[in-house]
């Protein structure tokens, strides 16, 4: 399968790999996907008092496109407000990484992951 150069770059040099303490109230965790489908994405955002995402980390089990989608996402969400981050669309990710149609689901998963992380964070603030 031919991957785009951008996918290969993110895959070979993934940005922001790692984990935060899930129980930290400034951290939102989104875990989406399932081993049965061949990909699981964990995205964590660290949000400051102004509601801006200061940092993000990910771990992904999945194909190169899934890894690249989540790596790219961590770059994109940094410095964004929660509202801005929730507006990231899977099509933006697919376009940036030039994902072929069979790999579009990887970008969908990334969009689900940021939404889930934001939900988790907001749930903790109540």
């Amino acid at each position, binding site marked *: *399968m031919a*991957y785009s150069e951008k996918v290969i770059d993110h*895959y070979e040099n*993934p940005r922001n*790999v790692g*984990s935060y303490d899930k129980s930290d109230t400034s951290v939102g965790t989104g*875990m*989406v*996907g*399932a*081993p*049965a*489908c*061949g*990909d*699981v*994405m*964990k995205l964590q955002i660290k949000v400051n008092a102004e509601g801006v995402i200061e940092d993000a980390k990910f*771990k*992904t*089990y*999945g*194909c*190169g496109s*899934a*890894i690249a989608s989540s790596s790219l996402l961590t770059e994109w969400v940094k410095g964004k407000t929660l509202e801005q981050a929730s507006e990231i669309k899977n099509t933006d990710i697919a376009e940036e990484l030039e994902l072929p149609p*069979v790999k579009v*689901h990887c970008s*969908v*998963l990334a969009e*689900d992951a940021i939404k*889930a992380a934001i939900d988790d964070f907001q749930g903790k603030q109540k």
Partner: protein
Amino acid sequence: MSNRKLPVYLDYSATTPVDPRVAEVMCSYLTPEGNFGNAASRSHAYGWAADEAIKEARKNVADLINADPKEIVWTSGATESNNLAIKGVAHFYKKKGKHIITCKTEHKAVLDTCRQLEREGYEVTYLDPEDNGLVDITKLESAMRDDTILVSIMHVNNEIGVIQDIKAIGELTRERGIIFHVDAAQSAGKVPIDTQDVKVDLMSFSAHKIYGPKGMGALYVQRKPRIRLEAQMHGGGHERGMRSGTLATHQIVGMGEAFRLAKEEMAADNEKLMMLRNRLWDGLKDMEEVYINGDMDQRVAGNLNISFNFVEGESLIMAVKDLAVSSGSACTSASLEPSYVLRALGRSDELAHSSIRFTFGRFSTTDDVDFTIELIRSKVDKLRDLSPLWEMFKDGVDLSKVQWAAH
């Protein structure tokens, strides 16, 4: 600097290079200076010479399996042989019954042919293999019915390399007058086959799995007792009416030479393959969470299929792009299903998605293996650092109890 050719080829079960000795023979049957005649031309020396060459090739193929040359029908490959055997028997013997037994881990050329017969009104039982990939003979026996006309079980599995007990199966089928077909694409030249000893009625072969050319195969059709087939390809009545079409002399002599060499070199080849396989496993087995798929004893020498738990197969294949290996996971196609063979063994989704098949061959070296060990170890470590499943495993989470947000 090593003069290693990259990527290192460890996918001999997918196909093999043509042995240079085979290629040399093939070349002498193509050009104007060569022996290019049509074996069906009875009126001149060009035809006679081609016919002679084909006779010799037929004998070479028959000799490897201790059969009569008259029992060999040339085809375009194991897929065609499987189609001819299964459809040919089903159509010819349909008045006798319409039930067929096969196994879920068969090659698609068998499974899809059976599916087609189901559409034509036949009934097919797809047996589940045991966890080690082998068919339980008692379960096979209890699936047999009065209207069973055919049992089709492969000799060696293409993904996990396990060797089925075709001798025991042949005893059961012959006793009941059921025809027994064996897909031997992955076993010819790797496991001794004696058609005088095993009661197999039909056997499919491929040339390119054993250092012959692609696009060439054969079907063994037993003469005593005689097995009848309805032809699938009609025309000039070649191959005793079972498979029409001008014989591809250069392909056939290539298969003949490959099978002749296989007979001569099988023992030495296997000894080397076993050494390479053991060397690879010895270099990987102390890693955490690695599992061999398929029985380790009833297995061809050149196959090792390993699941690296918590690492996804396609990303691993991408990480080891300096190795030509195949993933049990079918993620590279449009479907996201893991290997149907590993699923049939009862492997979990994670393990089925994390497998790599290493298959060695005549031109593999210890240097290839050492390079592989080093590369796999470092890449698996890297991908596990990236894997949320590995992290959960390390934290003691039982992944089978996690509620996944399916998508």
